[in-house]
């Protein structure tokens, strides 16, 4: 990915002291440019990272990070002994994985089917409609879901009533809530992934299809032996990159839609971190749970970056 090196005029003679100071002078503007970004990242990313120390404290805001009592791993012990932590971890992984797997499946199917369509205008219209929800916030989509899924006159239950089905508590029953989360996440995001897969599909060399056609392969055989291998690498790439998201079940969505009666099936690590921190004001425990999550996520991200680099020769920077 690094381009071939070239020598700009100012470094023609390396090693010479005068030239080195010259280079420093040349590069000074580069440092000046990057400084504002460096300062902001320091204030809003690195200082909070120092705040992770709270995970090992009984943190009291008035006393600050340096005045609060150190408690070692007590917060983590407390976390393991919380009765609902196992439910929460299980919900998180289950919801996140289902969203990733089903979402990608729907997106690949949609891309394959769109790729078969010959009417360009229909393809464009379908694309326009399916990735619009991606650009809307969970507040908007959550508001819409609350309205259409309501058991009190919501249109979905009205429609089910026509078929004689009893109203379903999509957002209030523990068996339906995770399904609602997964389905509505696919509604919001599958169009976005479809674009990526469609781009990969259109970059497949059309002469391959022509050759296969002449050799007598039908459309199904062509899909099986040309199209699928053609998008294989991008599927693998995206699958590997999503590894870091196994513990991200979608905070904003769950926070918008959940309620105490569905905590058992829908509470996730992030919403729990929020409640422990900002409703129970147990800052230390909240930070500890968050740290537990970020350490696992970080390990997964590093593994996925390494695998991606090895397998697909892809680098983030």
């Amino acid at each position: 990915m690094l381009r071939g090196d070239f020598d700009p005029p100012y470094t023609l003679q390396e090693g010479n002291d005068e030239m080195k100071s010259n280079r420093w002078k040349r590069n000074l503007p580069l440092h000046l440019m990057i400084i504002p970004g460096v300062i902001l990242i320091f204030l809003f990313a690195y200082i909070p990272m120092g705040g992770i120390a709270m995970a090992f404290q009984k943190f009291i805001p008035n006393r600050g990070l340096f005045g609060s009592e150190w408690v070692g791993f007590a917060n983590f012990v407390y976390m393991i002994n919380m009765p609902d932590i196992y439910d929460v971890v299980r919900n998180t992984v289950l919801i996140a994985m289902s969203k990733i797997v089903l979402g990608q499946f729907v997106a690949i199917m949609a891309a394959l089917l769109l790729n078969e369509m010959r009417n360009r205008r229909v393809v464009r219209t379908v694309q326009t409609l399916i990735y619009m929800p991606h650009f809307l916030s969970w507040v908007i989509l959550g508001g819409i879901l609350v309205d259409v899924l309501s058991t009190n006159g919501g249109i979905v239950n009205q429609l089910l009533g026509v078929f004689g089905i009893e109203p379903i508590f999509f957002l209030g029953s523990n068996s339906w809530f995770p399904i609602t989360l997964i389905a509505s996440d696919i509604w919001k995001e599958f169009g976005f992934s479809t674009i990526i897969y469609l781009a990969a599909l259109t970059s497949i060399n059309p002469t391959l299809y022509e050759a296969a056609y002449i050799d007598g392969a039908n459309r199904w055989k062509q899909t099986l032996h040309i199209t699928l291998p053609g998008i294989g690498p991008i599927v693998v790439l995206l699958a590997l990159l999503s590894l870091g998201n196994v513990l991200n079940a979608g905070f904003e969505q769950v926070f918008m839609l959940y309620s105490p009666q569905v905590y058992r099936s829908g509470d996730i690590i992030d919403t729990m971190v929020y409640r422990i921190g900002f409703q129970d004001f147990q800052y230390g425990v909240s930070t500890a749970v968050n740290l537990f999550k970020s350490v696992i996520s970080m390990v997964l991200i590093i593994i996925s970056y390494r695998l991606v680099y090895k397998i697909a020769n892809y680098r983030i920077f």
Partner: protein
Amino acid sequence: MVEPNSLSRKLFHAANYSIMIALSLFCLLPFIHIWAISFSDSAAVNGGLVKLWPVDFNLDAYSYILGDSKFGSAFWISLQRTVLGTLINVLLCVLVAYPLSKESTHFPARSVYVWYFMLTMLIGGGLVPNYMAIKAYGLIDSLWALILPGAVSVYFIVLMLNFFRGLPRELEESAFVDGAGHWTILFKIYMPLSLPSIATISLFAMVGHWNAWFDGLLYLNRPENYPLQTFLQTIITQPDMSKLHDVSQMMNVTTRNVKTAQIFVGMLPILLVYPFLQRFFIKGIVVGSVKG
């Protein structure tokens, strides 16, 4: 290529078009339903008569919103945040991406800086430490609490620096020969050539700022400081409307009417920029995710 025109092929196309149209409707119909409710008479809404077209068309809900000073001020705060936040995002992104697009051989500090920014993608402080930092800086209840923490987006920087790297090197070389410095090269040569990328990033940033709501909930204590999406969040998740509307208004307009109208107004700016989004996003996304 010649398409075989067999019966099975025709059947496949019929099925395919039906599936894709059904999928599109699945995405579209909820929005139409919400739109129809917002323009309907409250009695029809309560009676469950509104499906996909307004019944007894009227603008009560919208005239109510127009007279609601809380909604108006939240809209104004969102607008300020979006404009100011986007400008800062884009400026910082360009200023960081340019030095990072240089080769390490010529800008030895590059690798240090790359690590410095990269690390923030791997780990963050988390909810409570972030909140405590914002509090320590005295930014609680300030608009800056919504702008500064996300002002430097490493994701945008990666997109931008990859674009800068795609520009021909001869441009920079010849500018150096002519005596230009890095500032001149960035603002007079690179930026004008990068307008499509800058447009993409600006749109990303605008949508991000307009849609953000959780930071408002976290960092702003006083509801009168909420941006629109945070304001909407509190309305949607708190069914207790008595706090938000005086009784006389409740006589005329159902809460469902007003809610849907507010949702509709909340997504209107996104719908307005959507055609542009579509054009730039596809390029940006594809460059960002399939780059080799």
